[in-house]
């Protein structure tokens, strides 16, 4: 219960194509995250699945049924919005129960469903409050509760954590992950934050300019990116792209993750000068200027006493490097 399938889904506003030929299958119980830079069409795609935007061509199937023209309320989906979108004039209980009431469920049953969801989300004490009397985190939990209550086939999350502060974001992220385990529900989740994508997803869909760049499990994308864009987008801090010809490597650029470079004072390697150091306690990020590669980020475990303008030698782990051609596509050079 809760499969989603997109077949050649396209969407255009006038002459502008925002979603181009998207094919995707989300399995029952899967946590699927759409990730991409702003303007890549991920929110539009989610709204198309919800039925809030119509589909220009192609098909959307939920549990094998084409729902292209089905109104949102009959698609058996629930959506959580970035701005919470709670009804300001209703209290928490009515906010959560409105969908069921609208579907004609008996009062007692609605109350029961709301109580159960409220308990799950630690909201039982706030059921009679209005949204205006709640904190940001509580409001977001009410919005999630409103989705749970409806027992949908498909949960849709549209950047639900963007309005929360950093600490609350981590906490709510864990709550969402737990919720997914408890409910075993199919979730489609949109975010521009690759950390959220990595930590939550069973499968990540990387989008750019309305196209799917790559689909895969988080570690698959990390260890085996299909192209330069995905390689740069997944992983934090961002992957370094070194000049291939300067290293005598094939293609245009060599992608090396900041954690796969070691530093030393002497010996063979890439010569550079420290331009900035960030001490984070558990790890140290060193930014090094090296011609012709530009600014290279190096991530070191633990504390290191480098200072600006130090001269250092970098040694990238070439066994874990990725090679990309002029078009940013991955090259798989045969090991010599």
């Amino acid at each position, binding site marked *: 219960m809760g499969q989603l399938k997109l077949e050649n889904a396209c969407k255009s506003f006038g002459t502008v194509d925002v979603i181009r030929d998207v094919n995707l299958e989300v399995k029952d119980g899967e946590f699927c995250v759409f990730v991409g830079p702003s303007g890549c069409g991920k929110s539009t795609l989610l*709204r198309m699945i*919800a039925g*809030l935007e119509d589909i220009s061509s192609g098909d959307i199937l939920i549990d094998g049924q084409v729902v292209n023209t089905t*109104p*949102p*309320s*009959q698609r058996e*989906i*629930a*959506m959580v*919005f*970035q*701005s*919470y*979108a*709670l*009804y*300001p*004039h209703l209290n928490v209980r009515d906010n959560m129960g*409105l*969908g069921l009431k*609208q*579907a004609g469920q008996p009062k007692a049953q609605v109350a029961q469903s709301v109580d159960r969801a409220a308990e799950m989300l630690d909201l039982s004490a706030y059921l009679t409050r*209005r*949204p*205006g*009397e*709640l904190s*940001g985190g509580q*409001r977001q939990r009410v919005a999630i509760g*409103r989705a749970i209550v409806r027992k949908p086939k498909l949960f849709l999350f549209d950047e639900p954590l963007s*309005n929360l502060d950093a600490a609350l974001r981590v906490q709510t992220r864990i709550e969402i992950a737990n919720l997914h385990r408890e409910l075993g529900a199919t979730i489609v989740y949109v975010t521009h934050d690759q950390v959220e994508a990595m930590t939550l997803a069973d499968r990540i869909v990387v989008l750019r300019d309305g196209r799917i760049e790559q689909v895969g499990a988080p570690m698959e994308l990390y260890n085996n990116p299909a192209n330069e864009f995905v390689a740069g987008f997944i992983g934090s801090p961002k992957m370094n792209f070194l000049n291939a010809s300067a290293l005598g490597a094939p293609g245009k650029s060599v992608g090396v993750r900041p954690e796969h470079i070691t530093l030393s004072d002497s010996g063979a390697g890439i010569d550079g000068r420290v331009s900035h150091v960030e001490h984070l306690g558990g790890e140290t990020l060193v930014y090094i200027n090296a011609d012709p590669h530009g600014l290279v980020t190096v991530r070191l475990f633990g504390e290191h006493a480098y200072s600006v303008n130090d001269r250092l030698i970098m040694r990238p782990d070439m066994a874990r490097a990725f090679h990309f051609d002029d078009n940013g596509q991955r090259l798989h050079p045969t090991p010599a």
Partner: protein
Amino acid sequence: MSNPITSARGNLGRTAAAHVILIAYTILALYPVFLILINSVKQRRAIFNDPLALPTAETFDPIGFQTVLEQGNFLLYFQNSMIVTVVSLFFVLLFGAMAAFALAEYRFRGNLLMGLYLALGIMIPIRLGTVAILEIMVAAGLVNTLTSLVLVYTAQGLPLAVFILQEFMRQVSDDLKNAARIDGLSEYRIFFTIALPLVRPAMATVAVFTMIPIWNDLWFPLILAPGEATKTLTLGSQIFLGQYVTDWNAVLAALSLAIFPVVVLYLIFSRQLIRGITKGAVK
């Protein structure tokens, strides 16, 4: 960095100055109303001898109010004015908000043109069409009915209402409307239960702007509904203004009485300007 104490004092000075200006303006604006009120309870001779003086025990005389309440169907006029104003206001707000919602919410061909067309009435006074309106009303058999006035005033108030409310309807969160759609609310319920409460302050503003010209209008009652049974307050008061003799006591008393309903309506709407309820919906 400025010293917080001196800057607080500076603020205090500025606040005081602002209040002095506002109070002065209030006095200036309300003084004519005040004059009407005090002269309405004075003897005719006292009105002319010293119009600015307050009524004293000697000059006090409620003859104006007696005349007004005894002569003519003052209560009926009052009722007519009230019916016309409230019903017109209701339609202006209802249709204005509906049109504004549609223009702001739905993408359809000619959306922009339709918006401009509806706003055209702000620039063209409806009185230019008086002759045509009278012809229509005669043809429809609506002369000397309150319906004719309600229709004209609704048309008169709509352009500004649509224009102002459209802007506010755009500010209603899309997420909120979409959440309601997913919850299965119809577009009408989204309009009435979500959008309308959120634009209530704007509705109150529009109501005040719309109400006052309707209440004060003399033109259309005189032309469309001059019959005794459909006279409005403004028209009814005219009987005291003669070509040669004017019963000033009665005129001033009638005007004083006419002020109160407007004040009451204004108080009702201004309470709606408090926006507390919109808090916490989004973000």
